[in-house]
C-alpha cells in the first residue's frame, strides 16, 4: 500500500464533510453495520476511539498540565481548566515532574511588577486607614451623615426591592427564507436569522451573552445584547450569505447558545428543501414559425412583410447565458449574426426577424428563413417559408 497516492479531486469533493460524517457515525449504533460496507463503519470508528483513548487521555492531561502551569504563572487570569474535566480522571497528574525551564521563570520585569504592586498595596492600605480615622473623627459630630449614607447604599436598595432575577427563559430562532427548494445550486443566497430571547417580567435587565453557529457548531460567533429593565423579549438578527453548493452543505444548521446569565439554547433551524443541481447552458432545439403562413391568393407585385420567429429551447435548470446565432431570410445565402440573452432557469427564448418586399411574378420571394446557433452549442432550425404562390 503506497503512502502518498495522487490526489483525486473528485474524491476530495466527495469527502468534503468527512469529519462530520465520522462524528455522526461515532454516535450511531455500533451494531448497525452500513449496508454499503463503506469505510465509516460505526463499529470500526468506535473501536478506533477506544483504542486511542489512553493516548487521548495523556494528550488531554498534557494540555491540562500546561494550562495549570499557565495559571500558576499568572499568565492566564481565570482558574478554569480549558478543556476536559480533570476530575473525570482521578489520580491524573496535575503537576509536571520536570522543573520549569530557566527562561520562563520570573525575570526582572516580573520582579519589578511585583515590587510596584506591593508599593501600591501599601499606599492603598495606608489610605484606607487614614480614611477610617477621618470618618471616625467626623462621626463624633452631630450630623449623622454616616447612617444616612449607609441606608441608601446600592446594596440595601437591592435587598429591599423584590425584582425577578435576570434570566433567559427560552430562545426562538427563525430563518428567512424558510426554504431553498427549487433554487439553482451554484447561485448565491442570503439568509437572515432572527433570535428572540424571552426574559421573565420584572427583571432589572442586563446583558445576554451568547454564541451562534451557522454550521452545526463547527464554528461559532460570540455576541451579546443588552436588555432593559422590565423588557420581556429581545431580538438579535444575524445574516449569512454564500453560494448554494451542489453537495447541499450550505446553509448549515444554525443554533443560538446563551451562555450568560444562564445557559439555554434555541432549537436548531435550517432552511428546508434542497437546491436543484444546475445543468449546462445548452440549446436543445430551435423551432421556426412564419407569418403569414401562406401568400396564396395575393396578387403578384403586392408589398408584404413576412415575419420569421425562432423559438430556442434551452435545457432546464441551466445557469443562463447568451445564445449567439445567425439568421437567414434568403435560404442561407446571407446570414447576419445576432444574439439573445437568457436568464438562469429560462427554458425558452424567441427571436423574430422579417423580410419585406413586393411579391415577384417569378415566385422567387419570399424565401426560406431560419437560424443557425453557434454558441453555446451548434444547432440549426428548420427552414420555413410562407406556403402558396402569388397569382
Amino acid at each position: 500500500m503506497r503512502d502518498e497516492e495522487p490526489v483525486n479531486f473528485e474524491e476530495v469533493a466527495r469527502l468534503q464533510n468527512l469529519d462530520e460524517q465520522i462524528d455522526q457515525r461515532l454516535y450511531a449504533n455500533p451494531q448497525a453495520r452500513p449496508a454499503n460496507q463503506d469505510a465509516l463503519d460505526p463499529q470500526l470508528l468506535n473501536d478506533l476511539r477506544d483504542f486511542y483513548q489512553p493516548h487521548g487521555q495523556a494528550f488531554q492531561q498534557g494540555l491540562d498540565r500546561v494550562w495549570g502551569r499557565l495559571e500558576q504563572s499568572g499568565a492566564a487570569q481565570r482558574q478554569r481548566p480549558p478543556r476536559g474535566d480533570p476530575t473525570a480522571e482521578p489520580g491524573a497528574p496535575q503537576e509536571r515532574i520536570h522543573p520549569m525551564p530557566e527562561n520562563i521563570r520570573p525575570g526582572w520585569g516580573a520582579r519589578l511588577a511585583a515590587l510596584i504592586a506591593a508599593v501600591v498595596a501599601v499606599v492603598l492600605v495606608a489610605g484606607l486607614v487614614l480614611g477610617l480615622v477621618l470618618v471616625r473623627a467626623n462621626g463624633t459630630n452631630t450630623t449623622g451623615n454616616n447612617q444616612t449614607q449607609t441606608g441608601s447604599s446600592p446594596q440595601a436598595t437591592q435587598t429591599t426591592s423584590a425584582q425577578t432575577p435576570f434570566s433567559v427563559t427560552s430562545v426562538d430562532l427563525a430563518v428567512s427564507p424558510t426554504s431553498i427548494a427549487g433554487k439553482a445550486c451554484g447561485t448565491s443566497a442570503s439568509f437572515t436569522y432572527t433570535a428572540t430571547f424571552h426574559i421573565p417580567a420584572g427583571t432589572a435587565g442586563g446583558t445576554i451573552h451568547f454564541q451562534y453557529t451557522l454550521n452545526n457548531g463547527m464554528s461559532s460567533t460570540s455576541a451579546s445584547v443588552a436588555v432593559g429593565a422590565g423588557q420581556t423579549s429581545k431580538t438579535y438578527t444575524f445574516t449569512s450569505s454564500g453560494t448554494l453548493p451542489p453537495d447541499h452543505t450550505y446553509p448549515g444548521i444554525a443554533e443560538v447558545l446563551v451562555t450568560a446569565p444562564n445557559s439555554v439554547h434555541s432549537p436548531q433551524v435550517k432552511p428546508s428543501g434542497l437546491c436543484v443541481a444546475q445543468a449546462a447552458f445548452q440549446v436543445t432545439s430551435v423551432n421556426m414559425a412564419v407569418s403569414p403562413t401562406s401568400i396564396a391568393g395575393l396578387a403578384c407585385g403586392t408589398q408584404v412583410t413576412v415575419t420569421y420567429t425562432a423559438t430556442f429551447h434551452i435545457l432546464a435548470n441551466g445557469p443562463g447565458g447568451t445564445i449567439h446565432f445567425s439568421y437567414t431570410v434568403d435560404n442561407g445565402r446571407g446570414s447576419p449574426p445576432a444574439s439573445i440573452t437568457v436568464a438562469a432557469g429560462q427554458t425558452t427564448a424567441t427571436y423574430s426577424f422579417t423580410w419585406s418586399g413586393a411579391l415577384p411574378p417569378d415566385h422567387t420571394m419570399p424565401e426560406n428563413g431560419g437560424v443557425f446557433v453557434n454558441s453555446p452549442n451548434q444547432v440549426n432550425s428548420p427552414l420555413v417559408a410562407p406556403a402558396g404562390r402569388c397569382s
Partner: protein
Amino acid sequence: MKSASPASGMDESPAAALYRQHGPLIFAWLLKQAHSWEDAEDLLLEVFLAAFERNRLLAVPEEKRLAWLLSVAQHKLVDYYRLSGRRPQVPLDALAETLEEDEARAPEAVALRHERNADLRAALQALPQTQREVVQLRFGEGLRCTEIATVLGKREGAVRILLWRALTFLRERYGKDQEGNTRDAR
C-alpha cells in the same frame, strides 16, 4: 449543539478560550517535532506565555492567531533545538514503549481491552506511516482534518483522502478479522 469546544462556558476567560481553541493543534504539532513529551509540554507553555504576555495574541486579528502561534512555536522550537544538544533526551518512541509497558502492568480490565484491540493494533501497524499518523491525530488527539493538515504540513483535501484510505483499509482488514473472530466464537 455540537461544538469543538467541550468546556466552553459563560465564565471562560479569553485566555482559556484561546488555549482551548488552539492549544490542541499547537501541542500536536510540537509533539511531532520535539524529542520528548515533556519537551513538547514545555514548548507549549512557552508559546502560550508569549501569547498571553501583555495580551499579545488578543491584539492579533482572530483569523491570524493560529498562524501567529505557529510562528512563535517555530521560533521556540529553533531555540529548543539549539539547546537540546546540552540536555539529556528521551526519544518519544522510547516513551511510548515505557507507556506500553506501564499499560501492560495496568489492571486486568485494561489488559482485556488490549487483547480485544490486538487485531486493530495489527491492522494499524500495516498502515503506511502517514496514514497511521492521520488516524492517531483524528482519533487520539481529536483534531479535525484542517488541523491535521496544519500539523502535517499537507493540504486539507490530501488529509481527507489519507484518512479515508486508512479507514477503508482498516475496514477491510479489521472487519475481516472481526468477522473471523465472530465465526470462531460460534
